[in-house]
């Protein structure tokens, strides 16, 4: 409970407590010492109180005696009044002494009081005798009073002296006690001071420790090390809030860094694929160059051929040359960009046309198209190489009629493009080789390929879609034909 309260307390309050407690301790101790010393000084004052009273008594006695004597000498009214006043004063003093003593001192005191009584009686009688003009009596009374006065003074002096001796002893005891008190006070203050310093140090360090650790953590974070320990993240005071904020900040920073790193990774991957694509394109361009074909020259030549055929009314030749020109133009233009599926399908149609012209209609081409897929984007020049492959390796060397089937359909998020033949089929090891992309680079010197191998095609589709599984090749055995199924996402 208290711990929670302490955690919730603000630093200002904590610091105030830290400073207030030592100050309060020292203050209380000082007040206590001061009171003790004061009490002691009061007692020292008291010590000589008795002496003061006795001195007072002696003085009053002298005054009384003198005023009596004065009255006896001149019998004035003033003198009489002075005498009565002195008499009253002395009686008051006697009453003041009262029960001040005990033991042997009390006996002496009793002597003084009794003598005082008698003395007062004697001087009263003497004064009365004087007033009554009884000369004989007041003379003898005065003589007696004179003697008693001396006795009384002696007794008071003696008691005073005895009291003074005792009081002096007491005074020294008190004085030494006072000195002890002083020493003890100083020692206590030093002890408390030291303990206070230690306590204050510990208290403040307990408050600043989280702060120190926080600053260390900040240093480490600044140095790039996010594995830091933060103390007091649940505290309610300012440090707790700062700690929490700092922890949150470090967390956010880490998250952002992770995200940036990932996007950078993705970007670099994309760059890599772009680079590969360019490599492939360069490869294709190289092939073209190897074929020593100047595309413009070829197109112009073919156009010239088509015009010539048109002029000679050779419609079929015109169409043929036109198709061929379109084929090559597409071939050149579409290598490094994506195209719609319908464009690809068109190219396949042109290609089959050219082949059927070449091979005299031996290739039976069937297509079953899902029109809704016509607009999906695919890399250029992916279907023609597969059809070429199906013609060259599938159905060229068979005795029966060769059929090529092209079918597009959709399943879920994927668009499927299936190209199959009824040719010689493909052994599974070769399928694996093709799919893993090894050893199937096209050999442009061989046959009459346009130079783009299956490996190239698969690689480009992979790069385009970002997926690995982009093609299945199915062959159920020798002479059972081969089916290539391209799988591309509907939206890339």
């Amino acid at each position, binding site marked *: 409970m208290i*711990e929670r309260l*302490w*955690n919730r307390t603000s630093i200002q309050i904590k610091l105030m407590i830290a400073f207030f*407690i*030592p100050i*309060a*301790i020292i203050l*209380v*101790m000082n007040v*206590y010492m001061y009171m*003790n010393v004061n009490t002691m000084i009061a007692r020292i004052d008291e010590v000589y109180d008795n002496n003061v009273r006795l001195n007072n008594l002696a003085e009053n006695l002298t005054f009384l005696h003198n005023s009596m004597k004065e009255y006896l000498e001149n019998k004035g009214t003033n003198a009489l009044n002075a005498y009565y006043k002195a008499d009253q004063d002395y009686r008051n003093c006697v009453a003041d002494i009262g029960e001040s*003593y*005990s*033991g*042997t*001192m*009390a*006996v002496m005191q*009793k*002597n003084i009081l009794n003598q005082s*009584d008698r*003395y007062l009686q004697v001087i009263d009688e003497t004064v009365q005798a004087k007033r009554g003009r009884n000369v004989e009596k007041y003379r003898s009374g005065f003589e007696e009073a004179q*003697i*008693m006065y001396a*006795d009384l003074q*002696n*007794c008071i002096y*003696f008691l005073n*002296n005895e009291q003074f001796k005792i*009081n002096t002893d*007491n005074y020294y*005891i*008190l004085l030494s*006690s006072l000195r*002890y*008190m002083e020493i*003890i006070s100083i020692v*206590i203050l030093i002890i408390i001071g030291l*303990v*206070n310093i230690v*306590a204050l140090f*510990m*208290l403040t360090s*307990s*408050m600043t*420790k*989280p702060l120190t650790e926080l600053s260390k953590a900040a240093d480490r974070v600044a140095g790039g*090390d996010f*594995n*830091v*320990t*933060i*103390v*007091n*993240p649940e*505290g309610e005071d300012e440090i*707790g809030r700062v700690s929490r904020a700092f*922890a949150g900040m*470090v*967390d956010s920073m880490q998250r952002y860094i992770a995200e940036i790193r990932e996007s950078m990774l993705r970007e670099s991957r994309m760059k890599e694929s772009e680079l590969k694509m360019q490599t492939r394109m360069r490869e294709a361009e190289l092939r073209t160059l190897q074929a020593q074909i100047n595309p413009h020259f070829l197109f112009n030549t073919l156009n010239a051929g088509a015009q010539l055929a048109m002029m000679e009314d050779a419609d079929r030749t015109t169409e043929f040359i036109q198709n061929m020109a379109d084929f090559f133009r597409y071939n050149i233009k579409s290598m490094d960009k994506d195209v719609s599926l319908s464009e690809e399908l068109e190219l396949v149609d042109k290609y089959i046309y050219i082949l059927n012209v070449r091979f005299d209609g031996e290739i039976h081409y069937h297509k079953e198209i899902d029109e809704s897929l016509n607009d999906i984007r695919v890399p250029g020049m992916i279907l023609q190489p597969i059809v070429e492959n199906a013609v060259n390796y599938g159905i060229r060397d068979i005795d029966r009629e060769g059929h090529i089937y092209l079918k597009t359909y959709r399943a879920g998020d994927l668009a499927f493009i299936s190209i199959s033949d009824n040719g010689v089929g493909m052994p599974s090891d070769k399928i694996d080789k093709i799919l893993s992309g090894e050893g199937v680079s096209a050999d442009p010197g061989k046959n009459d390929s346009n130079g783009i191998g299956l490996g190239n095609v698969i690689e480009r589709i992979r790069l385009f879609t970002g997926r690995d599984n982009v093609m299945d090749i199915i062959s159920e055995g020798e002479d059972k034909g081969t089916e290539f199924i391209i799988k591309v996402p509907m939206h890339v």
Partner: protein
Amino acid sequence: MNESGVIRKPNKRYARRALRIIAFSIFLMVIVAIGSAVVYNSLQDRMPGIIEDEALEYEAHYAYIVTGEDEDFWKGVYTAACDEASKNNIYIENLGDSLGVNYEDTDLLRVAVNSAVDGIIYGGVTNSEAEELINRAVSEGIGVVLLQNDIESSGRQSFVGVNNYELGLMYASQIADIMAGEEEPNRKKVDILVDRNVSEGATNVIIMAIEDFINEHYPEFPVPDMEVRGVDTEDTFSVEEDIRNIFLDEENLPDIMLCLNSVYTRCAYQAIVDQNKVGEVQVVGYFAGSSILEAVNKQIIYSTISVDTWEMGRYGVQALNEYRQTGYTNSYMPVSTQVIGYREAGKLLARGEGTT
């Protein structure tokens, strides 16, 4: 890399430490406060003077007034009186000691009467002034007991001491002893040293007792030629001077010297030693203080008459108590006396007595 690198560590440890520090500080303050209070109290306990005399309330208060001389003797009496008084919670005030001034016996008596004490034990001068004051005390209801020297004519309640006649007989026995020790005893010259203030009557009683004793027991011995020598006690050193003068006067040197108090005895002893008169003048002393006993033991002094100071003190207090309680008391209470020769002196010294 760790998904979250920030380890959140609760600061319970610090919170707890801070609380502990506060608790410790408060605890310390309390401890120090209690500790200093204890120390302060113990300091106070060490001040017995401040805490006044134990509040002794005395039942009665007697004044003890004796002549300033003969201190050993009167100290013995005072000790005994105090001892007896303490049994009844009575305070005996040695008035001569209390009043620092050199007061006469009669002055002290006057102070005692004016102080309205409950009783007076008086062993001072026996002149008419003293008698008057004693009478005044008695008239005011204060019991007065006289020690050593009596004033029979006064109204005193009691006298504690040795009857002068008996004292004379004891001295006489010693004179006879001395004479018996000689083959042909001749008429002895005997000096009796007394206080000048002592009445003639008292000395006459002593002389009479001596004569009676010799005539009765030793009729064959010539009656000594006795002379009373008053010793001046007024001035401080006059006793010593007076006694020395006796020894200096070679022609009138006595054969036997009777000292009627311990001061005379000590002075005579010193004078004999100083004047080398050992054996020439036989001294019969008074009181058995240690120095006198030693003198007797060395046979410098022939013998001494020991009066029981303990009995004297006790009887004095007892007489006053009795008077206070009943209004009556014995008018004469004799105390034991003893003659101490050199044999007895040796024994007493061996026993460690004679210190009073």
